[in-house]
């Protein structure tokens, strides 16, 4: 990969130490074109820097990653967001994905894996950790009592469910492709569809799920 093909990455995190660490670890793989520690800073600087991928922290003092996503999505649809958080609580993960993040990884991820995730997000793919796949399966678990407003949109197909299960079991995309006798491209399509459904699916349904989840 030549230097001018390197991905432009922007960091949003309220901990300066963490930003410095990520910058140092990612330096070999991508160009870090900017940093921000607050929502307001992030909104103005991302607009100026126009990065390929924004690494977004979930919990920040003045609103968090969700606020950044909601502010940027309309005006800069070409910028992709990858949530990078210390929290893997279901509410945070689903909340960020629904707000439009293309993936969600936790801060314990290794630098190489993070670089790979950034690349995948930049290419328009979704990054699903096994845990995230588990949350989605849980969220879309067949509940005969719950009315579904738009079945086409809100239900996962059996194939998508299978792909998610394998993801949750720790399979890589190419292993899933081998297991299901489909191409990697098809796996990626299924995963992207799941992400789309997650973002667009019945709002009441998922918010109720999140609320119930907290009560559990």
């Amino acid at each position, binding site marked *: 990969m030549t230097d001018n093909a390197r991905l432009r990455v922007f960091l949003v995190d309220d901990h300066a130490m963490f930003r410095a660490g990520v910058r140092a670890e990612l330096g070999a793989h991508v160009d870090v074109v900017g940093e921000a520690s607050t929502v307001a800073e992030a909104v103005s600087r991302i607009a100026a820097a126009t990065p390929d991928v924004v690494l977004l922290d979930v919990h920040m003092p003045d609103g968090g990653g969700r606020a950044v996503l909601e502010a940027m999505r309309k005006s800069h649809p070409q910028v992709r967001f990858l949530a990078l958080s210390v*929290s*893997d*609580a279901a509410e945070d993960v689903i909340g960020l994905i629904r707000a439009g993040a293309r993936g969600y990884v936790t801060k*314990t991820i290794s630098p190489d894996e993070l670089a790979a995730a950034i690349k995948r997000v930049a290419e328009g793919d979704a990054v699903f950790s*096994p*845990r995230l*796949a*588990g949350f989605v*399966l*849980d969220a879309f*678990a067949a*509940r005969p009592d719950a009315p579904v407003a738009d079945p086409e949109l809100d239900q996962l197909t059996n194939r998508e469910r299978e792909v998610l*299960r394998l993801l*949750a*079991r*720790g*399979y890589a995309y190419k292993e899933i492709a081998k297991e299901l006798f489909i191409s990697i491209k098809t796996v990626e399509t299924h995963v992207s569809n799941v992400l789309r459904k997650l973002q667009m699916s019945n709002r009441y349904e998922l918010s109720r*799920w999140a609320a*119930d*989840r907290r009560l*559990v």
Partner: protein
Amino acid sequence: MGVTIDTARQPRRLYRARDHRVVAGVASGLARHLRVSPLAVRAAFVILLGFNGLGLMLYAGFWAVLPYERVTGEPRRRDVSQLVPFIAIGLGLILLQVLVLGRNSSVTGTAGWLVAVVAVGAGIIWHESTPERRRQWTEALPRFPWLGTFLEETDRRLFLFRFIGGGLLVAVGVIGMVAVYVPAENNEAVVNGVLFALLGLLGVGVVAAPVLWRTVSQLRAEREGRIRETERAELAAMVHDQVLHTLALIQRNADDVKAVQRLARGQERSLRNWLYKPTGSPTERFAAALEEAAAEVEDTYAIAVEVVVVGDRENDERVAALVMAAREALVNAARHAGVGTVSLYAEVEPEQLSVFVRDRGAGFDMDAVEDHRHGVRGSILGRMSRHGGHAEIRSEIGDGTEVRLFLPMERDAVTSGRER
């Protein structure tokens, strides 16, 4: 230091408004407090005026007892004009007597006293304002010096005592009024008396409601404060007992990477559970039991286990066997696969429980496992079949191992994770 306490807590208080006032700012102050239109409050006063001048009396009463809205910076001074409302109250009482009792002069004196008793009772109830206000009250009532010392007290219990005392006075006055009217055998007078008593009670209610409300909200704020304090103490204890000790151990073992990782992982897990997870008993819930088994393996073998559980259900003997088999699979992966991370995925479905343990390690050849090695055969395959389930092991040299455990279920035993 009652003043300090009062300003520190800042409840929403009823003041007479300085701005937007027409006469004394009572109506606009009330309106602001109740969050309704001042016009409505004024209209209510005017309508109440029709009931034997009650509106006037209420207005005068509010005028007398409500402090002026506090203005920051400006020193508060005594407002001599606030004595005027007492004259207004007196005038109102006389007016009432003339209006209601004019025809029956024999009871006028008694009823007037009873009304006065009611007014004093209401005044005592309403006494809940700042000490300054209390002093004004004392000065305004030179005829009751004992009341003054009574009112100066800031103690909580005395407040309650005063409240009950005031209520008693009001009750005595109202009962007395009815009692005075009834022997007159004058229907109109009885109706008037009852009506007046009801209106009086209503007025007292209006006066007393903010006091009660404030007391209740103060109590609630106190309780919330206590709860917050308890939570803080719990967090501090938890941080002290676990996090600080772990950090100290990490500093001491800084050159032993494995130990540091194990300590950090264990601490992360327990903090995470503490922050995000409800306390589920491993003996009762399937998911909690799996997570506990994974935690044990993590601690013992210094590997990371990525646990994903979809759904949950009650634990029983068969489920416990499944958990034990999963634990054995994790231990095998930790000991033989030679990797740092193992995935554990479990799904609770209406018909069956399934658990998958996967690593990307060395792998092995099932046929080459000698007969006397019982780990796989006894603890996993055998245990599963004894409890009516089955296990599959897929392993390829160099491509890792996946252990799949399935346990069929009766439909009714299943609860999803959300319905706990």
